[in-house]
């Protein structure tokens, strides 16, 4: 009877120690290094472009490149690309939408002021 209880709890322990569903398992060292290189190269591009005068577009270009770097970090370093849980697909776009609305509302005021 004592043995029966031991083996039952051992089985249970084994079940508990089963690895949790891990989206991050799909990415390995090679992926991370490539993403890092991509981010570094994009930094280099941002810097180089800032030394060239491109009238008017500099901010937008810089922000687009920064956005690309952020997307790389979010998807690969923060494992969003392989995330299975659906809730992330809701909350992150939701917050970005909130920010965009704030920006749009702010600029619909600021852009029309006579300071």
């Amino acid at each position, binding site marked *: 009877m004592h043995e029966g209880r031991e083996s039952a709890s051992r089985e249970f322990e084994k079940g508990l120690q089963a690895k949790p569903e891990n989206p*991050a398992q799909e990415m390995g060292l090679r992926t991370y290094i490539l993403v*890092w290189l991509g981010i570094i190269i994009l930094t280099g591009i941002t810097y180089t472009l800032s030394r060239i005068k491109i009238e008017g577009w500099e901010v937008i270009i810089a922000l687009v490149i920064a956005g690309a770097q952020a997307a790389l970090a979010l998807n690969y370093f923060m494992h969003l690309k392989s995330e299975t849980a659906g809730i992330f697909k809701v*909350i*992150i776009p939701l917050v970005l939408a*909130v920010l965009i609305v*704030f920006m749009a509302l702010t600029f619909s005021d600021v852009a029309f002021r006579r300071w």
Partner: protein
Amino acid sequence: MNEIGEAVLEQHRDYTGAKVGMWLFLLSEILLFGGLFILYSAYRYRYPVEFHQASREMEVFLGTINTLILQTSALIMTLAVLAIRKGNRRLTAYLLAGTIALGAVFLGIKVSEWLTHIEQGIYPQSPVLLARTKGEVLFFGLYYTMTGLHGLHVLIGICVLLVMLIFLLRGKFSPSRFVPVENSGLYWHLVDIIWIFLYPLFYLIT
């Protein structure tokens, strides 16, 4: 005592739930910094020339080095999470220590930049600064506020990682229990992403 009952109480974990919790916090941080970025954009829209003028005081070289340092620390942090997932505790410890070290270097450079500016008399409410144009005053106000708040987040991140390192050395993490390390990594990556936007907006205004 019921061994199985105890095992259940000790081992109930929710991996996805833990990550969702951290993500919700990160999203609130995004809104926090987002508000400051919107403030920056409103004033830059208003004073484009003065912002350009003021940004010439920035040491682009140091800013760029700091950017590369932080981005590399993000890689090291990701590898630390990979290492503990594979059960390599020693490597995880080295990689966590590496992330902390790079974060500390980042802060050191940032502080030295601030000190340079302060020595030149440029700091909030200084007579030197107030003698300049309104746009420049606003630029430096935003500079100190946003890089200061970001630096505070880096400092907090370093403290969190130190705690993770201590827990790791005490044997609390394993391939089946590492979500605190992963969550710390998520926080660290957010700090990196925020800097990715701060860098061009303060250092690369042409």
